[in-house]
């Protein structure tokens, strides 16, 4: 669901203008324009190498765009360091999870609570208590005393999410949280994500699992070779020939067009 401003138009939480990123000769991102509306779940798909993670890196401050601007809640965050962006209320997970291995699960999440958007108001004890709440919601409380190094992959993925949630973000970027999960785990993850959204957090979800993206997204954006090639209603977007061609190749796309059916 999308929150609306007073006069019925949706509030823009994040706006990316003409974002380009070059690595030497390679253009990883080319002139991406994107608006993220408060309250929505924006699904982001695209073949490998399309630039999805690069985009998230540029927005979250891990990297800087070669050109373009990013506005978050009206503030220009293009050149802001990542810790400051985090404190403003923008959090992300990493595709290859980054747990703090020698800390317990609880302390991992507590760190997010201590240094995130509401961190300044919390003591370490309060942060740890809040961490336990989050672990409860996520379903990791039974492992709270274990070191992160001991966790299985699905649990590590949930820990990654918990850490980000502990930062009290308004906007959360999820980068392929479902990679490596089985069907049941995917269903649970989808429910979890919907729950997070219902609690008021806007989501930007990169995913390869089509079923999941289709199931949770309000809107979908498709990236290909660093460009945005489609944007809009999920069902409409994936039937667009450009999108089919990007994923499945030209021959298959022609076949789809010929049959006027989606594969």
């Amino acid at each position, binding site marked *: 669901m999308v929150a609306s401003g007073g006069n019925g138009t949706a509030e823009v939480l994040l706006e990316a203008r003409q974002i380009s990123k070059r690595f030497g000769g390679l253009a990883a991102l080319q002139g991406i324009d994107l608006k993220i509306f408060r309250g929505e779940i924006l699904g982001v798909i695209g073949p490998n190498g399309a630039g999805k993670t690069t985009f998230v890196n540029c927005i*979250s*401050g*891990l990297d800087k765009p070669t050109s373009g601007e990013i506005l978050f809640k009206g503030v220009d965050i293009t050149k802001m*360091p*990542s*810790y*400051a962006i*985090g*404190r403003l209320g923008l*959090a*992300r997970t*990493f595709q290859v999870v*980054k*747990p*703090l*291995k*020698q*800390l*317990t699960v609880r*302390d991992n999440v*507590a*760190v*997010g609570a*201590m*240094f*995130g*958007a509401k*961190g300044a108001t919390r003591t*370490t*004890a309060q*942060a740890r208590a809040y961490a336990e709440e989050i672990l409860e919601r996520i379903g990791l409380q039974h492992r709270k005393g274990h070191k992160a190094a001991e966790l299985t992959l699905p649990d590590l993925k949930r820990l990654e999410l918990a*850490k980000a949630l502990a*930062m009290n973000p308004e906007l959360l970027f999820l980068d392929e949280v479902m990679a490596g999960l089985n069907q049941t785990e995917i269903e649970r993850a989808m429910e979890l994500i919907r729950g997070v959204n219902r609690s008021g957090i806007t989501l930007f979800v990169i995913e390869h699992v089509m079923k999941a993206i289709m199931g949770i997204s309000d809107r979908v954006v498709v990236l290909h070779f660093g460009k945005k090639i489609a944007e809009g209603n999920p069902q409409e977007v994936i039937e667009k020939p450009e999108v089919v061609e990007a994923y499945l190749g030209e021959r298959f796309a022609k076949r789809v067009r010929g049959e006027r059916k989606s594969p």
Partner: protein
Amino acid sequence: MPERKLSRRQVIAAASILVLLVALLFVPKFRSEYELLNYTRFLILALMAQGWNLIGGYTGYAAFGNVAFFGIGAYTTGLLMISKWAVPFFPAMFCGAILAALVAVVIGLPVLRLKGHYFAIATLGVAEATREIADTWDSVTQGSTGIDLPVRSEGEFFYYSALALVVLGVIATALLVRSKLGYAWVAIREDQDAARMLGINTTPLKVLAFALSAVFAALAGGLTAYQNIHVTPGDFFKLEYTLQMIIATIIGGSGTIFGPVLGAGVYQLLSTYVWTKFIELHPTVLGLIIIFFIIFAPRGLMSLVSEGLKVVRGQKRFRWQGLLANVRAHRVT
């Protein structure tokens, strides 16, 4: 990081520490002048190790040049004491610590941007460079001939001063480590990018850890300078000091509150023993000890102790393979 309520385990731990402390208080009464010297050396090493532990153990930046701060502390203390203002010892030592901290901030800002090996070697270079500067800056440091501090020879004075500083150091470490700063340091060590993403402003915090390690080293340097009376660049910027503080921390358990003190004690014990038995081959044996610990017990004695306690409590079974587990983990076949 432990719970708020005091468990029985913690009461026992606190009690044993108290007993140890009281024992340490009485050492000068029951030990000869010579043995007292050894105890003092242990305490000074513990002080340096505690400082190193903050930047190397908790924050994960293996600094290899902290002897630079030791020397800065020594020279500052000495020069102030013999200057026309004849600054008394403790204020002079304090100034040494401040100066060392400032130098650490100035050096730390560029150097802490480096990672791993690069950082280590850069800090090694800092120590060497500082030694050279002390050697050549004749007008201030009297170059390689060195300076002489006012004489004071009661062993007890040095012992109790060192003891007080070590106790303060333990308290300071405990407070820091349990605060948000401590969590931030560990986060930086475990994964700096993740730490930044979580809202931690890593640069000032790293520099702070580095500066604090400099303070500890400088205090140790000032004390040693007063005790030794004669201060030269060759003696006070020795790489050996850096090695000792690192090894002491590793032996005891880096990233723990008591590890450095424990490790310093063990190291001093070994070192004294080895000295009396193998004077000429002393470094060889120490080298072997380092190698042994690195291969078989890299997490230090504190972790061996906690693992051992688990066995005693029946939470874990004792297996010989346990000792080799670390070796297997890091091998390449």
